């Protein structure tokens, strides 16, 4: 070894961690080109323009950064890894568009040509505007109203980037855990290899999340859902931090779906004590019962709503902060400013990795808490005369 071992490990860890930040290095092509262009302009017109050129070029970078952040956060109908601004070429693949509009229309999203072309399908014309599909006439006219088109939107069932990522994560989880289960059979009750990492986590979910909250009698019914939610949210959060540019859990529709599942499971597997505690709570004087019942009913809906908002806001805000800090690297054109921004964004990336795990844990823990309150047995009141 050229260096002592401890420095080697530090270097390896640093490089691994830098992967997370490199994900946002896409604007290098476009921003670099724009910067050089602006510098050229500045050199040519220093005599005439004077001090205004700097503001213009920094505004150009800010627009580019904002555009890049939008591209990262929104759901798109094609999977673009990065695009070269000078040649206009996009590297990626397009995904199928499936629309239901008085009949099923299926075509590849490459026909939209990134929002420029109008697609004709079975006599109807569609156009893409800010990644939403609208039905238009043959020329592709969108009736704008306060900056938003008011055309009819067909029911969009396409395989978008988020749907594809969810399917990929589902496939990963399925393969991972079936091979984990099979390895137990092969090795006589002991896991080998990757199983060694996931076994303590699965046991943690069972012993620290499920059993304390749901109780010994009923926890087995809910274990599969809790494990699925935990790993699904964790893997999707981690995928959001990679250079792929996917943002699945930072999308309120997806966290809405997960929260709806918790809501349905809680209310459809609840016993009489649960509904009793909501509408006619025992051990409380009658006027209080009447006042508390609507509040408790509201609570039934607000608890999953808070689950949805918590996960969505944490991941979405984290992405915005992280990408803004990385954009700051390109706005500061000095050695000192850019390197400080880089170190700050690196530190924030580490926090985001922790937040990914923590939010998955919190979602699972709160779901288990709600399930526990749904199957709680009747406790005898203390003050019995």
């Amino acid at each position, binding site marked *: 070894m050229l260096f002592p071992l401890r420095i080697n490990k530090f270097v390896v860890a640093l490089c691994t961690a830098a992967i997370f930040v490199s994900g946002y290095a896409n604007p290098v092509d476009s921003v670099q080109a724009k910067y050089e262009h602006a510098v050229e302009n500045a050199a040519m017109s220093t005599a005439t323009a004077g001090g205004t050129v700097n503001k213009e070029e920094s505004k150009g970078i800010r627009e580019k950064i904002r555009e890049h952040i939008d591209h990262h956060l929104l759901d798109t109908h094609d999977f673009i890894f990065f695009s070269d601004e000078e040649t206009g070429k996009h590297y990626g693949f397009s995904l199928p568009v499936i629309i239901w509009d008085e009949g099923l229309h299926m075509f590849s999203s490459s026909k939209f040509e990134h929002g420029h072309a109008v697609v004709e399908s079975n006599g109807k014309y569609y156009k893409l505007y800010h990644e939403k599909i609208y039905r238009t006439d043959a020329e592709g006219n969108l009736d704008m109203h306060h900056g938003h088109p008011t055309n009819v939107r067909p029911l969009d069932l396409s395989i978008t980037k988020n749907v594809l990522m969810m399917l990929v994560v589902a496939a990963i989880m399925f393969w991972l855990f079936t091979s984990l289960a099979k390895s137990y059979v092969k090795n006589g009750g002991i896991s080998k290899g990757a199983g060694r990492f996931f076994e303590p986590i699965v046991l943690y979910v069972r012993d620290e999340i499920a059993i304390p909250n749901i109780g010994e009698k009923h926890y087995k019914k809910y274990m599969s859902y809790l494990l699925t939610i935990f790993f699904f949210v964790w893997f999707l959060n981690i995928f959001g931090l990679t250079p792929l540019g996917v943002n699945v859990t930072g999308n309120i529709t997806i966290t809405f779906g997960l929260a709806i599942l918790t809501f349905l499971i809680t209310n459809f597997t609840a016993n009489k004590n649960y509904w009793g505690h909501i509408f006619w709570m025992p051990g409380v004087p009658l006027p209080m019962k009447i006042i508390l019942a609507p509040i408790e009913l509201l609570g039934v809906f607000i608890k999953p709503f808070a689950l949805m*908002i*918590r996960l969505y*806001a944490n991941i979405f805000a984290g992405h915005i902060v992280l990408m803004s800090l990385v954009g700051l690297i390109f706005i500061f054109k000095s050695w000192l400013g850019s390197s400080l921004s880089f170190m700050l964004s690196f530190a924030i990336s580490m926090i985001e990795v922790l937040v990914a795990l*923590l939010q998955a844990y919190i979602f699972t823990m709160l779901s288990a808490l709600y399930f526990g309150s749904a199957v709680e047995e009747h406790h005898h009141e203390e003050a019995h005369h």
Partner: protein
Amino acid sequence: MNIPRIVGAGLVVIGAGIGIGKIGGSAMDAIARQPEASGKIQTAMLIAAALIEGIGFAALFAVAEQ
């Protein structure tokens, strides 16, 4: 540049910060009293912090600009 919105967002963050800070402080005191219960105390602290953060974020999204 809506000033009331900005002030509102700042107040929400102050509230969430104070809440989580108080929880963290009591958690520290409790762990100092009884170090063997630190696992349970840490778990409870994280749950309470996540709930408060959830409310904080919900309020932030309510005041955010469209």
